[in-house]
């Protein structure tokens, strides 16, 4: 029996390896100096893969990805951490029991539904309220992305805050600190690694999120620093163009290159996030005993 079960254990290892292998295999043909120059150094930076002379600059798309990610994180990080701090340090246990399922329901909303919400409802509201020139822009897409990131930031930060030993709080109270002082100057710093990890993992999710950005980003690959312009992300480009691309061509390779880029970035951010959480857990257990 042991053999059968350890075989199952190997599946995860084998597939994570295969995922890298197969995305990399399709990417390899474009990994040369000439193509990389076209991807990153072409002037002007334009993404027009199907024009007569294909222009394959990744710059507008990477910029779009970063814009959406930054807006999403700017919303989700403060809200998620504040909510986690509130529910772990101040909320009545009964209230805490309500907050948890709410967060889980929010996390359970499929990203295509969040994309629909941003595209059909939120974009109109924001345009009516702020008079945006473009209905679909980085603010709208990033905000919807932020809604999807809040549960990640909240859950991981809250876990970290809850892992801070009681003795820390009691020592702080004994020194005459108030609950707020204890929460912000003792518990939060002690849980800082978990909070940091929650940001890193939320970043990984934001970079790779597809449906929300595909639907609510406006799908315009333009090189612009403005948050009020429509945008297009790496993930949305893959989703929109993979269906019609000629297999094996330069465009195909470029799309797989984007996939590899996403895989590598998320792999690094996930490994970093997990490692920070693990090392903090070890330290907290040491401190508690």
């Amino acid at each position, binding site marked *: 029996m042991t053999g059968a079960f350890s075989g199952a254990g190997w599946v995860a290892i084998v597939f994570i390896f*295969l995922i890298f292998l197969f995305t990399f295999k399709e990417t390899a043909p474009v990994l040369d100096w000439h193509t990389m120059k076209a991807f990153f150094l072409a002037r002007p930076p334009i993404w027009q893969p199907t024009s007569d002379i294909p222009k394959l600059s990744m710059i507008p798309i990477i910029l779009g990805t970063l814009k959406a990610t930054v807006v999403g994180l700017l919303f989700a990080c403060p809200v998620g951490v*504040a909510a986690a701090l509130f529910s772990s340090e101040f909320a009545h246990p009964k209230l805490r029991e309500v907050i948890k399922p709410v967060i*889980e329901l929010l996390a359970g909303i499929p990203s295509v539904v969040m994309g629909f919400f941003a595209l059909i409802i939120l974009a109109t509201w924001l345009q009516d309220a702020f008079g945006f020139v473009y209905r679909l822009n980085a603010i709208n897409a990033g905000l919807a992305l932020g809604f999807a990131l809040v549960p990640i930031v909240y859950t991981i930060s809250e876990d970290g805050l809850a892992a801070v030993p009681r003795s820390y709080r009691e020592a702080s109270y004994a020194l005459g*600190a108030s609950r707020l002082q204890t929460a912000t100057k003792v518990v939060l710093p002690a849980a800082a690694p978990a909070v940091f990890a929650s940001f890193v993992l939320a970043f990984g999710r934001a*970079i790779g999120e597809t449906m929300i950005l595909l639907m609510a980003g406006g799908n315009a690959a333009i090189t612009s620093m403005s948050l009020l312009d429509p945008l297009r992300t790496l993930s949305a480009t893959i989703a929109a163009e993979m269906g019609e691309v000629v297999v094996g061509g330069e465009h195909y390779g470029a799309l797989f290159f984007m996939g590899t880029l996403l895989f590598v970035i998320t792999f690094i951010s*996930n490994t970093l996030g997990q490692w920070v959480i693990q090392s903090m857990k070890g330290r907290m257990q040491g401190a508690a005993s």
Partner: protein
Amino acid sequence: MKAPAKQLSDRIAVGALGLSVVVIVAILLVIIGNIAIHGARTVTWEFITQPPRDGLMAGGIFPAIVGTAALVILMSVAAVPLGVATAIYLHEYTPAEGYSLAWRRFRLSKGRAGRKRLFFRAMSALLANVTRSAVANLAGVPSIVFGLFGLGFFIQFIGRAIDRATQPPGEVVWGQGSLLWAAMTLALLTLPTVIVATEEALRTIPQDLREASLALGATQWETIRRVVLPGALPGILTGAILGISRGAGEVAPILFTGAAYYLPFLPHRVTDQFMHLGYHVLILSTQSPDVEATKPLLYGTVFVLLALTFLLNLTGVILRARTHSRR
């Protein structure tokens, strides 16, 4: 010990923290409320049981419901047994003391009997560590990359190979997007959720029970099957359901692995393409010739998709709450 009395400035700051919770609740209520109010009007018996008509401008979503159900069932059949088996391996068959301790024990055992066993124990702990981090990383791979992988591995590599072996030259049956390959891609995506939740459930079974069973002469497999699994079943079920509900809502991985824009027939074989609720939402909201006219259909489809995932989610959450309170 009780904290010192609250100051006004403290109250304001705590209120600000509490406000963030209010914001989160408000977001959830606005999204669900909006979809429920507009969607419920469209969802009639006809909407659920009729196929789309007039180029997706009218009619219902029956084929998309059937396609989603078939996909979810196939996916679960692949992901749940594999995920549970992996978790059992990780929790029951690998050394509980962890890699660093196991390795130290092996190093300190120089010249003593049973050294080989300690080495294997350390290696097994190392493998468990690697598996755990592979699972964690698998959970973080973007869903669109799963889609690329499904296309590159399942369709182009495995599917084409099956075609070469079983079909006359030029015939493509397996080497194209289908229910099977989409389900396999999704199964991979839900695997980490199932593994993590199952391991969590196994952890709640007290070590004493295992030791009592082994002391009575049961083998390890008998202990797992008769003692551990029955106790952990509700937790495993919860994990499976939560994983499935995540898979049911994912669209990015099935974009190029088998989801179809419109099909006049229902899928009959695993090699058929299929319609899907989430993909239908994408099509209706981005490629409709007249967005205003198809809005009721769109809202109805979103409503059904959301109801499906929430129902699965809610079952999981309630099941978990009940098992927790029983302990």
